[in-house]
């Protein structure tokens, strides 16, 4: 896996955060989330574990996104959009479980909306990325 691609003139990495730092943060985040399989019972105290996940994931997000080539900002937006449609997981739980009818309907609409984002988001991102042609070999 090539974690540090050679920099080229069309790729700008302002204030690039070194990948090791990102990975260290990531490991911390993941270690935290692996342990934190607490029962979902109504928490008496605020669930600080979730806040940790949020804060660390935000830092990772900032670090990773700052390194994204400016060429790819449009596909980046459609990709992150598809990724945040992971809300599908919550919608499935709400739609699928045995709940009153109106809750199932609300969940179903949410599931439809998330699924649309997943399908169209990934497909159009790939369609756009396919168009980015490598520089012509041999010419300047």
């Amino acid at each position, binding site marked *: 896996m*090539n974690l540090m*691609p050679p920099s080229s*003139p*069309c790729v700008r990495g302002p204030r690039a955060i070194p990948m090791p730092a990102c990975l260290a943060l990531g490991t911390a985040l993941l270690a935290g989330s692996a342990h*934190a399989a607490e029962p979902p019972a*109504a928490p008496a105290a*605020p*669930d600080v574990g979730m806040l940790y996940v949020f804060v660390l994931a935000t830092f990772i*997000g*900032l670090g990773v*996104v700052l390194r994204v*080539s400016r*060429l*790819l*900002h*449009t*596909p*980046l*937006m*459609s*990709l*992150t*959009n*598809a*990724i*945040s*449609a*992971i809300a*599908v997981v*919550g919608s*499935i*739980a*709400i*739609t699928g*479980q*045995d709940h009153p009818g109106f809750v199932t309907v*609300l*969940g*179903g*609409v*949410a*599931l*439809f*909306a*998330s*699924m*649309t*984002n*997943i399908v*169209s*988001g*990934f*497909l*159009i991102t790939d369609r756009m*990325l*396919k*168009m*980015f*042609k*490598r520089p012509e070999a041999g010419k300047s």
Partner: protein
Amino acid sequence: MRQLLVEASSLAAAVLFILSLHWMNHPRTARRGVLGGVSAMALAVVAALLASGIVNWGWIGLAIALGFAVGIPLSWVPLTAVPQRTALSHAFGGLAAGLVGTAKYYLWLTEGPENLTAFRMVAVVAEILLGYLTFTGSLMAAGKLQEVRWIPQRPVTYPLQNASNLGLLTIALICGVLLIFRPVELAVLFPVVIALALAFGVLLIIPIGGADMPTVISLLNAYAGLSAVAMGFVLDNKLLVTAGALDGSSGLILSIIMCRAMNRSFSNVLFGAFGQLQAKAAGGEAKVAKAETAEGAAQVLETASRVVIVPGYGMAVAQAQHRVRELFDQLRKRGADVKFAIHPVAGRMPGHMNVLLAEADIPYDRLVEMEDINLEMPQVDVVLVIGANDVVNPAARHDKGSPIYGMPIIDADKARMCLAIKRTMNPGFAGIENELYFSEHTYMLFGDAKAVVGELVKQLSGTSGMH
């Protein structure tokens, strides 16, 4: 055992999401990013379906099938319509968050008020506020971009607009706070908060004009991500919080880049109502722009050895990118060095021009960012401006009275000669006259971008036989 599998697969999905964004740092590895994202999503969905307690398989199947039925055609839109599609998908993301928040609240309310802890209520209120305002706001933005007839394209402003918007938001926040402390007794306020959030989303976007769309879409992206984070808090789902935070931070960074590229602040974009500034007309002496014919322009281009093309929204509107590619080929055939100067806010969303030019098969090493191309400008023989306006207006550098003063621009005026393709002499979105057009080195080519570039190509290919 099953629980362990679910946990392990969401952990793997979180890792893959991060790697997926990491691979976007270069066009060479970017498609791997999509693959990573898709596999993560598949893992997470399978895990969610395996989770115990799922009984309504029919509903799930129906919703997923409908999602595919709508999602697949949505991915076929022409690339000029990508900003609308993106805004629409932010709307869907916001809607999903809002609906799940609503469902959860009423579920907890009926199952037993002891479920409605303060922490959960904070998350629910944040989720419905962000979700519903993102939903209507993004729908409005998509409508404006698609030029739907009954949505005004121009910024709509009215007296006390900002005060009433802020008042509305304050009322919504107060209702939300009351709900957090009295979730059962004041349950009647819940629909009120939803209605206010829906209304606020519409009112927030009404005063926004086309040139602000890159910033607004990025902001809505951040809101959609944050609403997914809030949903993760409500559902106690770490994967959701992680993915939402990635989306939110991406939206935040893009918003900051867009704001810097316009030299404006968030609040200025959202509450500035840029459209009103057009009253300040350049009075006094009538300036004259020099018009040039396609023949003349082709002769100039023929002898140029360094050409820079500055594309703008006008190129997208005219769908001229494929003609531009033909022009690029013609000029390259003559040995000219041709580059494209990309302003961060050219077009209607971040990176819009790059995608359009990539569609037309222009190699990405020819697309140069503003800061880099400006260094080379004095050595450039001809700058060809295609449907760009404010991003090449030299007034941004020196005219302190200009609404775009301080905005970084592409220094098209510093090249030896400038050719500008423009439909008419009407000022651009901001209603500001562009000094560039009256400079002594500038020649105007009037007409539709596609037609004019096509004519240039015809002239250039016609003369190539005579040499």
